[in-house]
């Protein structure tokens, strides 16, 4: 065991998988010499060489597209997109190809690749550096979407993602990169995808969240009898864990950074409204960013859900 922050934990997962499996290689902008703009791949070029830690030209679509080709050839590429706001340029490759290669070729070819990208707000960065558009990718069958909330699960989930036979979008909450430190095993281990984690137990209300919102949620529910579910895998999400909690509490708040409309919160609420409605004692409340363009740093504090808003939503539900 060692104490690691999330950058170190991710770096450790990458290094171990590369050492264990020569099919694993990294590609992206500034991932080599610079070690990644957040230093996530620091030291890997020196250790594994330029053939496995590949600094690419500034071409998001070709980064993902080349990763697809590598995967089809039998490798296990891990592509980095420098910020989630720049994945939009690679959307076509992800949705048209990564997600569909297995289906299209009826299994003759697959695309076991990982796309890692810094995700989410709260870091006062320039425009497009704080996107949280996970819901878009959760609407793409054939792709899994994962968001760790701390160093331990980051390492275990990334390991699972790299070993997965299908494409995984791995979203790294930028705000948490160096915020949280945890005990993390130095050797490899798996945190299985598809399983949510109960981050806090409680009986009167269920709060579902993920990524960097989680610690805000935990602060917000202090002193309340709230169960907090950390989704971890967003697509496919762990319906059973959510429903089981709702069956006990009868009340749900879903919290995400993304704008409200058509966010992943909608899918979770809709699932509960179909499969768990008989347990509900109150409306399902979503606490999310408003349906506006993500603002620049000066207004981001007014945009992102904060503990006060989450707390109000929880209290409102507890009145039912």
């Amino acid at each position, binding site marked *: 065991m060692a104490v690691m922050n999330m950058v170190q934990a991710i770096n450790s997962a990458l290094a171990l998988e590369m050492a264990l499996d020569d099919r694993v290689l990294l590609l992206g902008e500034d991932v080599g010499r610079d070690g990644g703009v957040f230093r996530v791949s620091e030291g890997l070029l020196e250790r594994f060489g330029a053939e496995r830690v590949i600094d690419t030209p500034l071409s998001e679509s070709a980064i993902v597209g080349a990763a697809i080709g590598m995967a089809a*050839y039998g490798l296990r590429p891990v592509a980095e997109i420098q910020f989630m706001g720049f994945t939009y340029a690679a959307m*076509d490759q992800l949705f048209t190809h990564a997600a569909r290669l297995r289906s299209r070729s009826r299994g003759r070819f697959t695309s076991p690749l990982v796309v890692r990208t810094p995700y989410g707000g709260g870091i006062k960065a320039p425009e497009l550096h704080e996107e949280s558009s996970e819901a878009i990718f959760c609407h793409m069958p054939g792709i899994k979407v994962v968001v760790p909330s701390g160093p331990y699960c980051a390492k275990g989930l990334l390991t699972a993602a790299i070993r997965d036979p299908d494409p995984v979008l791995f979203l790294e909450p930028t705000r948490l990169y160096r915020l949280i430190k945890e005990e993390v095993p130095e050797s490899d281990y798996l945190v299985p995808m598809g399983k949510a984690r109960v981050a806090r137990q409680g009986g009167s209300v269920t709060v579902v969240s993920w990524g960097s919102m989680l610690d805000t949620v935990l602060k917000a529910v202090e002193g309340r009898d709230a169960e907090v579910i950390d989704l971890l895998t967003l697509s496919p999400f762990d319906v059973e864990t959510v429903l089981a909690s709702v069956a006990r509490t009868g009340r749900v708040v879903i919290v995400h950074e993304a704008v409200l409309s058509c966010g992943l919160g909608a899918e979770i609420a809709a699932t509960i409204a179909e499969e768990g409605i008989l347990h509900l004692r109150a409306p399902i409340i979503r606490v999310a960013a408003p349906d506006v363009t993500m603002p620049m740093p000066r207004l981001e504090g007014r945009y992102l859900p904060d503990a006060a808003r989450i707390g109000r939503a929880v209290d409102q539900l507890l009145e039912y």
Partner: protein
Amino acid sequence: MPETTLASHAIHRLEILGEDGDVDKALMPELSDERIVRMYEMMVLARSFDERAVTLQREGRLGTYPPILGQEAAQVGSASALLPCDWVVPSFREMGVHITLGYPIHRLFQYWGGDERGQRGPESLNILPICVAVGTQIPHGVGIAMAARYRRDPAVVCTYFGDGATSKGDFHEGLNMAGVFKLPAVFICQNNQWAISVPLKQQTAAATIAQKGVAYGIDGIQVDGNDIFAVYRATSDALAKARSGGGPTLIECLTYRIADHTTADDAGRYRTPDEVATWRRKDPLLRLERFMAGRGLWDDDVGRRVREEAVAEIDRAVLAMESAPQPEAEEMFTNTGATLSRRQIRQMEVI
């Protein structure tokens, strides 16, 4: 110190087989009679496939289909230069490549009949699935080449696309990356001079597709795409260069789409019968027949026999396609991912 010239980039064109069937002996690649006959048979087979596909579509037995008529030399000629270890990344109009490489013909029919199972080629063939989204396959070829080199495999990747595809961002990002990493890759543009109704001049102000290689520091060459020997030679040379570490090549096969864009298109709306007639006269198959006749490899009887054998093979493939069982709805699920989520399992049960 004033205006200086940094470099000059010459663009070349290769022609070997003339319209009359004569060849430039100095440039003619070394090909045994047997191989030439084989290439001819493949061209005839490709054309027979194409004719049948159009007929089947008209009869409602196939979906929308994009004919390859007129492009057989560019496809058979380039595919004939490949080794079994090489990889092919096709667009959607290279059925002549598939056929030359021995891709099961009934599977091609199956695919154009709207069935994904047609895209599951044999394990022995390194051909990526047909790609409908124009140009988006190009970066895949780049990734495969990176992987092959990383593995120290001798494979070279041949990526095919049309003239229209050269306007897509993925063409650019892909070729630029191939240049930077000096990859074992050959990019073959089937410049048939039309992208549906858009003629080449409205597709790009560049006089050739070949010169687009200059932007990436990679060699580009134009070949007469209706000249099977020029296509074969340019491809062989590019493959050899790539295999020996010399990096990528962009080959422009200047040819022509004789038929409609697809069976859903009516090319009469946007181009003249004259233009089409001019290119019909440049038929790559006739040209090869003339050459073979001069060499004593072809006469009407040979033509008839090759044609009959091709048609018989196509008949068998149609039968195989049409006697295949219907796909099962479960296949949608089991092919989306290696494992199914509980939700997917439930959905599968309901459907």
